[in-house]
């Protein structure tokens, strides 16, 4: 009897000791976690803010950032005949994802011992993963904003190709061969609810000869963060001052809350959603043109900076890109939206690889440089055989040269 009670006593003490130790461990780990995440969460942005002393607001002027580019002009690089065995990873933009999946086997045909993982996760994750070093290449439809460059000073944004965007609509009774004319200003008013019917006088005024129905417009936008939203809202900001000061442009913006609006995930979701919603209007990447046509959606001719309504043809995209060639700075962070020129299609953008200048070792840096150079070269990754599959357009040669120069900065 006594014996068993003392055994119980000992057992109880052992357990209480164990519990004490466990509680201590819990507190230590939780505390460590708090400390770690406090550093990552609120510390990092604070230390990188560049608020001028005395002022509470800092507006970054674009010129201050453009002066940071390297001045070394790299000629067309020569690719090594073989590479050391390596595995590198790419993640980010879902718009670039299909192209990477064409590029990787093409590259792998020459460099058989290099393995490249690809993932379509979204431009934001592409940028933050490249910054964190969890992947070597982040893919983004959006360039790095000045504030982001200050946040991640080691990141480069390197254009790999040029993409464009359609403005699609589902208008029963109007054949998809009839293309409506549309302006950025009117689109902004549709998306903020100022214009709510298809037969609004502002729309009919630029569409003579088309009988538009008296139906409510359903503006559709992306619910996930998207480079498409980035360039679409850039177009709206460039053409409508209310939009510029109240909503702005980003991969996801605070779209005005109007009950007739709708949102979908991904370009595929936008096609499906627009097809299911008569009298909708939507913005969809050009690589989905075969899908929008199969869904019976029409697309608009957009007004460019010269005032002309232009079709989304390869020639018009190239015309816009050519106009922006000379103003592209060495760091290549620039919007191509609303370019000057009579034929320029107004919503185009560079598709970027977001890469850190400092890779983990020399071999990785060599492989990343070789792969990116291969992607940009007109006889390799920028060949029509790759780009035509996704509706993209090749970089002009002077832009490719700027990309080579940026790629040359990648080192261990």
């Amino acid at each position, binding site marked *: 009897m006594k014996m068993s009670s003392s055994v119980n006593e000992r057992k109880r003490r052992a357990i209480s000791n164990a519990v004490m130790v466990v509680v201590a461990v819990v507190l230590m780990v939780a505390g460590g976690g708090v400390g770690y995440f*406090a550093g990552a969460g609120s510390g990092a942005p604070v230390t990188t803010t560049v608020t001028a002393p005395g002022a509470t607001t800092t507006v970054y002027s674009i010129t201050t950032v453009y002066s940071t580019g390297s001045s070394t002009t790299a000629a067309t690089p020569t690719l090594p005949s073989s590479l050391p065995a390596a595995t590198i990873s790419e993640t980010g933009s879902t718009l670039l994802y299909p192209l990477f999946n064409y590029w990787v086997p093409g590259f792998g045909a020459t460099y058989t011992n290099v393995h490249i993982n690809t993932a379509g996760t979204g431009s934001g994750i592409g940028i933050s993963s490249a910054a964190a070093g969890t992947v070597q290449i982040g893919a983004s439809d959006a360039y790095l904003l000045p504030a982001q460059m200050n946040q991640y000073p080691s990141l480069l944004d390197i254009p790999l190709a040029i993409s464009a965007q359609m403005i699609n609509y589902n208008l029963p009774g109007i054949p998809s061969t009839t293309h409506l004319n549309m302006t950025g200003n009117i689109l902004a008013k549709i998306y903020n609810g100022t214009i709510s019917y298809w037969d609004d006088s502002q729309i009919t005024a630029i569409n003579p000869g088309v009988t538009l129905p008296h139906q409510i417009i359903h503006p559709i936008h992306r619910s996930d963060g998207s480079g498409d939203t980035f360039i679409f809202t850039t177009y709206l900001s460039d053409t409508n001052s209310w939009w510029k000061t109240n909503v702005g442009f980003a991969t996801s913006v605070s779209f005005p809350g109007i009950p*007739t609006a709708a949102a979908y995930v991904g370009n595929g979701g936008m096609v499906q959603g627009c097809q299911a919603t008569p009298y909708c209007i939507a913005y969809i990447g050009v690589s989905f043109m075969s899908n929008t046509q199969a869904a019976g959606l029409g697309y608009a001719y957009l007004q460019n900076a010269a005032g002309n309504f232009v079709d989304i043809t390869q020639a018009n995209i190239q015309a816009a890109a050519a106009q922006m060639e000379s103003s592209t700075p060495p760091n290549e962070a620039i919007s191509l939206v609303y370019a000057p020129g009579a034929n320029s299609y107004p919503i185009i953008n560079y598709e970027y690889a977001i890469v850190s200048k400092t890779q983990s070792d020399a071999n990785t840096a060599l492989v990343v440089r070789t792969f990116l150079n291969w992607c940009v070269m007109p006889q390799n990754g920028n060949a029509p055989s790759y780009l035509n599959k996704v509706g993209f357009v090749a970089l002009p040669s002077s832009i490719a040269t700027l990309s080579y120069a940026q790629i040359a900065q990648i080192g261990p």
Partner: protein
Amino acid sequence: MKAGGSWRRTADRVYALVSALLGSSALLFLFMVLAVLAVFGVPSIIVNGLNFFTTVIWNPGISTTLTTIRGFPAMSGASYGMLVFFSGTLISSGLALLIGAPLSLGVAIFLTSVAPKRLSTSLSFFVELLAGIPSVVFGFWGFLVLAPLLFNYVEPAMAQYLGFIPGVGGPVYGYGLLASGLVLSLMIVPIVSAISRDAMAQTPVELKEAGMALGMTNWEITRKVVLPYAKTAIIGSLVLGLGRALGETMAVVLVSQSALNVLPKTLYYPINTLSAFMAVTFDSALTDPSGMEVNAIAELALVLFIITTTANIVARLLVRRGFISSAEHLVQV
């Protein structure tokens, strides 16, 4: 003998320590998650204050301009309000419960009181199978089948014939509140019906026989004996189902239309929920150079965490009390 004893004591101590460590890992994880959410959420809690709970507009601000609000960096014009997501979460889950509760109770009653034993066993199996379907599959079905069906047939008819009821008239969208509520209701049926069935099956045979002896019909026995008997556990199972609906993400992302800056006024409005919004916005929040949108999302997560944890605790207490009271009852009988 002595050495062996001390070795065994050490082994015993190690055993106690290791098992306690493993056993407390759940607690550890809970604290870690809470700590991370709290730390990430603090800047947003300070910057947004009470506005976070009272405003409709979720605005990360203008991406080209950084500013400082109450000592924290943010994009200019940033202001975060969770009302759209909070109300969407509660309304869609409430609707799911409204549709799912009678459905689940019907299933449970049929399985315990009406169906013959063999049918009941095999049917129970299928109901439980329903619980194992990943939510994205429900969402996929909702996106491809349910929402277009609602848009083309159900909602126009409802708006036309039941439009006199407030909130049922007006333009229809297909994807929105009704679709979300329906998909969520299907997802809570297995959990609610399984627990209710177990509670109802515990009704003592003597009570049922007493009912029969009094000449009660099958329906009267269910209504006057079985349901009162299992009442607390059934309510608990409903709250547990609510807990699942509150946190459901993927299915809602696919069928809700992810409303932004607008509150639902009819049954058909686009909506958004805390979890769905967190999932779809996180990517672009990472591009906010001030980091404030990530902080605001952490605060959303904190709110969701508190809501679902509360629902789960309440549900578990109710379910346990329900079963305990039935057991006590059994002893008395």
